[in-house]
């Protein structure tokens, strides 16, 4: 005899860690996913001295903005893959059919995305800082601002990726949807680095980035899961 109702025996935290492990495992199996954004990050930063001026004082001036813009673009580039491959092979629709809230999986996927793009970018940023003659006093500010700011980029980006996953050419559309929402993060992020360069306290900027992160953490998975449902049902 078949049981009347299967009682949910998996807790939300178990599902969360399973989803996180799965996505991390997938990124590590596909090394290019892991390294391409980093290489892109490096290349974009190289373009500025070549395209504008190799003058150290000038580069030091623009470094906070350049590193932040490069990090933002590298994140943007990696967004399309967040749900795309799961959508293509049908695993995404299976996630929708879990009796557990989809939000949990979305949160885990977003965090996995950050751990494989935002976090490596943050760790690599001092290298770019050196290349762009960013004063060494400002390195800590750069790393801290990226550490708090890049998860927000992943959270916002996840919404865009989820909205466009059902479309064949989602890549450019993601940028259109997500970039305007990234602007506040960019402003406060590069502002923090600029303040660090000037030797000013950066607590206020980091607090604002943190506020954005807190909002993103609680609101973005909601929007992302709703968007995934819409995209898969279309």
């Amino acid at each position, binding site marked *: 005899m078949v049981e009347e109702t299967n009682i949910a025996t998996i807790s939300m935290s178990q599902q969360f860690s399973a989803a996180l492990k799965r996505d991390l495992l997938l990124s590590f199996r596909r090394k290019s996913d892991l390294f391409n954004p980093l290489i892109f990050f490096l290349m974009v930063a190289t373009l500025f001295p070549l395209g504008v001026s190799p003058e150290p004082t000038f580069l030091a001036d623009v470094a906070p903005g350049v590193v932040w813009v490069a990090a933002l673009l590298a994140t943007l580039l990696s967004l399309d893959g967040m749900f795309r491959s799961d959508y293509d092979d049908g695993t995404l629709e299976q996630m929708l059919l879990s009796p557990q*809230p989809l939000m949990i999986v979305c949160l885990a996927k977003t965090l996995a995305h950050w751990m494989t793009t935002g976090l490596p970018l943050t760790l690599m940023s001092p290298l770019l800082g050196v290349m762009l003659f960013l004063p060494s006093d400002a390195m800590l500010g750069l790393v801290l601002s990226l550490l708090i700011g890049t998860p927000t980029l992943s959270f916002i980006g996840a919404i865009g990726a989820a909205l466009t996953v059902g479309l064949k050419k989602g890549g450019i559309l993601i940028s259109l949807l997500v970039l305007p929402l990234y602007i506040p993060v960019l402003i406060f992020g590069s502002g923090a680095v600029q303040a660090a360069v000037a030797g000013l306290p950066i607590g*206020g900027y980091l607090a604002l980035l943190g*506020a954005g992160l*807190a909002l993103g953490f609680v*609101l973005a998975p909601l929007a992302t899961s709703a968007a995934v449902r819409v995209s898969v049902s279309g």
Partner: protein
Amino acid sequence: MNPKRKQRLALVLLLVVGVSVAVGLALYALNQNINLFYSPTQIVGGEAPKDTRIRAGGMVVEGSVKRDQESLRVQFAMTDYAEEVLVEYTGILPDLFREGQGIVAQGAIDGNGVFQAVEVLAKHDENYMPPEVAEALEAAGKMPKPAEEVFNK
């Protein structure tokens, strides 16, 4: 409580916690001077960093504007009715620039404590009035002056 209700409750709690953390952090941030905007009092008091790009705002002191005859160089004093700071600027000033007008300047403080502006913008106040009214007010000495606290943020 059934698991569904529990989930909802957890979600609502999470939302409340997240939003309050965000609000708390934002309030903390607003208490910091994060716009790099300084008043003449702060500049004279040494609060503003030297040789870094900052923004400063104040009123142009009456009779302080000196224009260089050969170049576009202008020097004037800026005040918040407490302290004065000398400002130097090379370039075309906006139409609304005049003595007694509120301005916002971007630039850096040099070694002599003079504000070297790279940009001067007129901050026009929100009092719109016809010219006759302005003349009458001027004559009576009742022309509204921008509140001091505007420059003491």
